[in-house]
């Protein structure tokens, strides 16, 4: 069987395309649990802030730490190769979450509440959208949809602001996680 260089190059290109899609699908499946977990945590955060408004800052900080810890545990449990154990992306998201948490703490007494409700999730969703440039189109779409929903909530203001934020943010993350689960490939 003789294969000429053009055919060999075309075959190798085909293989690279399929491998890229497969790695994307594996990443999608691995990310789904993380997204669903964050969706539930965000819902809990809003619930706690509503029940104990004076401790809202503390409860959000605890939620963020819990989410970061859960993310590291899920990634650690799933990783089985050196490549998969590359935690740079998770560290980048953790740095962004810490940045948002610190500035939320510094700003919350000085800026309108609606702005506080929009700031941290916008930062997080921006991170997801930017990560999508490397990880796959779905993350770009998810980030854009989430940002649009947060902007709509911010512009409409009270009395539905908090309800809108909890439903749109948790909903985006949970539905996104379910989509990732359905379209990913578990390994």
């Amino acid at each position, binding site marked *: *069987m*003789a*294969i*000429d*260089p053009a055919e*060999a*190059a075309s*075959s*190798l290109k*085909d*293989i690279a395309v*399929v*491998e890229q*899609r*497969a*790695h994307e*699908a*594996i990443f999608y499946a691995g990310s789904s649990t993380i997204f669903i977990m964050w969706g539930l945590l965000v819902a809990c955060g809003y619930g706690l802030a509503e029940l104990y408004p004076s401790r809202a800052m503390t409860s959000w900080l605890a939620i963020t730490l819990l989410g970061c810890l859960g993310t590291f545990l899920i990634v650690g449990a799933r990783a*089985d*190769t050196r490549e998969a154990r590359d935690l740079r992306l998770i560290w980048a998201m953790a740095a962004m979450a810490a940045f948002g948490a610190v500035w939320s703490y510094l700003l919350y007494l000085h800026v309108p509440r609606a702005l506080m409700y929009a700031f941290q999730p916008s930062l997080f969703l921006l991170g997801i959208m930017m990560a999508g440039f490397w990880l796959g189109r779905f993350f770009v779409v998810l980030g854009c949809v989430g940002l649009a929903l947060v902007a709509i909530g911010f512009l409409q203001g009270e009395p539905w602001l908090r309800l809108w934020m909890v439903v749109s943010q948790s909903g985006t993350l949970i539905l996104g996680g379910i989509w990732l689960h359905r*379209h990913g*490939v*578990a*390994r």
Partner: protein
Amino acid sequence: MSEANEIIHQSMRLRIMAALNAVAAKNAAIEFTRLKALIGATDGNLGAHLDTLEKAGFVVVEKRFEARKPQTRIRISAAGRRAFANHVAYLRDILATPLT
């Protein structure tokens, strides 16, 4: 120099093997529908090529019921992984060999 593998070299079968090899950690299997989506094949086309690869001993096809629904899962065999690696090495050799 490695040798070409005529069974694997066919375009669709090459894509099947590439996808299975990429998701093959811990001998994991992939669902028929997911594999179909990954490589852009139709049901009939994928089924026929999987038959060929299974007869060659390159893939293992498992049929089972999950929540009362039939499910077909496919995984690459050790022989399939070796054959795929050899074929890829052969393709790379062709590109690396200067034309005379």
